[in-house]
């Protein structure tokens, strides 16, 4: 869980709970602490409570219990317009009756900033997102990507220290999304702002963030940097949710040192790294990433436990091959291999042996 004792925390959630109907908690006991300048992503399926957290931070929802602090001060009772938090919305929320420049001038106007300064700041902000020539246009005359750039510029124009983004790229096509992901992270680091970013797209979360908080069922399941999240999931939800993952169910036979032996339900015995298992006899789900599975006898890591497998399907995906296998009673075991000149293309029906390193194989909760 998050480190709530951090002294340099800029944004802090402490024991925050939220309920809409008085019966169910949408956010359960949330503790989170962010240092200044961090790019944190809240990732999770819809209904997991991530957007609610963002709205509580922005001030549009009030926490049922707990404390939310910004720069050391509790903001529970501060109305949204006094929090000085920039926000980018999913549907951009550009005011349709104002031009792009007027949209950007709006936060400055309400802060009673003089006209000349205002115009200068608007110009700088528009140039920053390469939209300098579009000041006179209406939002409706812009494409989705352009609108998102303007929305970003508007959230940044009044120089907030914290910017919240609520699935800002959700409505854009893949290529544009990738370009903008890159631009947003660069801008954030360049300006040194703290960003809380909400998305349900895990690729987005992994590529953009300093840290990712995986939400499920109102709780943070894991809060970690992207690589750690991917390679060392702490529970089977995170393992399933982040990236593609093979799961084998079984019972822990014995734990010794840094490894454990797991007797699979579908037959076979494998070695794994115990994460959420503490004693023999416990049920467990063993998680292994498709790209860490080896089937080439010559390259098989030393001491790896192997399992018999039958090739069911071979899919050519360009840079990689994706092969579906039947392993230990499950038909959904995937392996991914790089498309290299010496790579073998498996044929359906072929019988092979697969294996992996014990440390790549994590025994998680059942």
């Amino acid at each position, binding site marked *: 869980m998050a480190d709530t004792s951090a002294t340099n925390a800029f944004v802090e959630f402490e024991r925050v709970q939220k309920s809409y109907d008085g019966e169910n908690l949408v956010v359960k006991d949330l503790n989170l602490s962010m240092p200044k300048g961090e790019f944190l992503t809240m990732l999770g399926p819809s209904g997991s409570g991530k957007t609610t957290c963002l709205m509580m931070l*922005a*001030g*549009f929802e009030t926490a049922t219990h707990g404390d939310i602090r910004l720069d050391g001060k509790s903001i529970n009772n501060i*109305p*949204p*317009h*006094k*929090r*000085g*938090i*920039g*926000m980018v*919305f*999913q*549907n951009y*929320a550009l*005011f*349709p*009756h104002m031009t792009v420049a007027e949209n950007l001038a*709006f*936060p400055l106007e*309400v*802060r009673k900033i003089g006209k000349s300064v205002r115009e200068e700041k608007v110009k700088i902000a528009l140039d920053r997102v390469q939209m300098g020539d579009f000041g006179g246009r209406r939002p409706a005359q812009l494409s989705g990507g352009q609108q998102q750039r303007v929305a970003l510029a*508007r*959230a940044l124009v*009044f120089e907030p220290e914290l910017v*919240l983004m609520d699935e800002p790229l959700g409505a854009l096509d893949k290529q544009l999304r990738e370009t903008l992901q890159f631009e947003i992270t660069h801008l954030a680091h360049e300006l040194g702002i703290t960003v809380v970013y909400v998305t349900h797209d895990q690729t987005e979360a992994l590529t953009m963030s300093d840290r990712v908080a995986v939400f499920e069922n109102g709780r943070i399941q894991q809060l970690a940097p992207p690589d750690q999240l991917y390679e060392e999931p702490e529970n089977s939800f995170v393992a399933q949710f982040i990236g593609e993952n093979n799961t084998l169910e079984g019972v822990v036979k014995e734990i010794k040192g840094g490894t454990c032996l797991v007797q699979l339900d579908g037959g076979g015995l494998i070695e794994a790294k115990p994460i959420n298992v503490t004693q023999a006899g416990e049920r467990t789900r063993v998680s292994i990433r498709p790209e860490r599975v080896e089937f080439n006898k010559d390259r098989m890591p030393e001491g790896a436990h192997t399992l018999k497998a039958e090739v069911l399907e071979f899919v050519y995906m360009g840079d990689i091959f994706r092969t579906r296998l039947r392993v230990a009673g499950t038909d959904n075991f995937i392996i991914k291999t790089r498309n290299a000149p010496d790579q073998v293309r498996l044929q359906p029906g072929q019988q092979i042996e697969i294996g992996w390193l014990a440390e790549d194989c994590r025994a998680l909760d059942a």
Partner: protein
Amino acid sequence: MSDTVDATNTPGEKSGPVLAADGTPLKRSLRRALRRQKMSALLLIAPLLIFILITFIAPIADMLFRSVENEIVQDTLPRTTAILETWDSESGSIPDAPVFKALYQDIFIAQERKLHTRLGSRLNYELTGASSLFRKSGRGVGDIGEVYQDQFEDMNAFWKKGENWNDILGSDAWLAEIKSWKKSSGQAQPPFELRADIAEILPETAAFYKIFADFTQNEKNSNLYKKDPWELIYSSFYDDLTGANAARIDTYTGPGAAELSEAKTAAASFETVDYKVAFGDIDKDWVKMPIWDTIRAYSPRFTNGYFLNAVDMQKSEDGPELRPENQRIYYTLFMRTLFMSSVITISCILLGYPVGWILANLPARTANLLMILVLLPFWTSLLVRTSAWKVMLQQQGVVNDTLVWLGIVADDSRLALINNQTGTIIAMTHILLPFMILPLYSVMQTIPPSYLRAAKSLGATNWTAFWRVYFPQSVPGIGAGSILVFILSIGYYITPEIVGGTTGTFISNRIAYHISSSLNWGLAAALGAILLAVVLGLYYAYDKIVGIDNVKLGG
């Protein structure tokens, strides 16, 4: 562009129109393909189009036409108006004898046809007393004609009988037919034909007899041959006998030639009628200027008189002028209608806006329930709702009782809330409120809540966020609602009629009065046309200022 297309599509040709696969020009085949769609679309709307044309557009066009149409004067008094054209109305003296003679002829025919009272009431709109003048004159013209009739009949009983007149004036062929015709046969009566040359020998008599014959045969459906002629025939007969053409009578050789010759001799010593004096005897108004000015002013087939009347003006010697102060009502009424409609529209905005806001921001279930409450008045009869206000607002009504009970109003100074402007405004605001709420609601529903959030996150207070961001986006709803409410209220009739009393009525109540009570349809049509013009004018102004594409009734 077309060159490149040609080059790729049909390599052989260098220029010319783009061709479809079968070689016909592409434009033509596109038109052909679309024509079928257009035709079926037209067929689908045809029933409604025809229905609207017949039952709505045509009557309105007819009604608007009535506001300028004025054929009744010329149709009823054709001879009088023809001669009056040469009369110098500025001379200050009433017209000469020939006009009175023509007037006698016109009114005689009109009273036989029972049209003189209609003309009387038409002219009565312009000149009070015209109606009774014409009614009196209709009764009086018979006496004028009798002077000659009696003299001719006293001279020779031959002139008493219709058969004899027909024998002289009818053609031989017609006489043969009419004599063998029986009413009981069921066949149509043979139409009257003048004897050849008789129109030259007895021009006036022939002309009026033809009118008499047509009237008797076609309108009265009685046997012309047995019918005794009008008094008018005798007076025109006298005119012919003593007129410039009298010498020709001797050339006549047909039936009754002897009697004709005798009459010609006798007529010279007949007692004559001075038509001017005779009309003066019927009513003194005939020898005064006003009626003649009015008839002359309203002789043309088309008139602006109704429109002048509708804006409190009248025709005068020196062109249109304002009516006397105590006769001006329409300007005040128009202004009152516009003023009260504006007040009603503004009240509807003030009351409807918060309701629309709440409906748009509640969860769908609750909003639908509340929407039913908004729509509920629609399902109640308009008359019932208006009458309910009568109960509520009267001096001993629920509202006053409550105010007295609360001690806000003293018992002896209860508020007058009905039968005045207040009553009309209250009742109509209530009745038209849904027309404001519905467009407001549907427009507000389309404004995402994220706009308000965005504004607040950018630092705007609740009020600024509302006023700078939300309100401008709800303006199309206000516009649509206002146009609906304003245009509906400007033509509202039932509610002001019931609760408006005398000070709270609209122009439409006056139009209804002219349609159903005073029967001055021309004026009603003129008022309606002005009302229509005002509405269209306001619509145009709205389009210019706000833009009609800014009106939204929904998403």
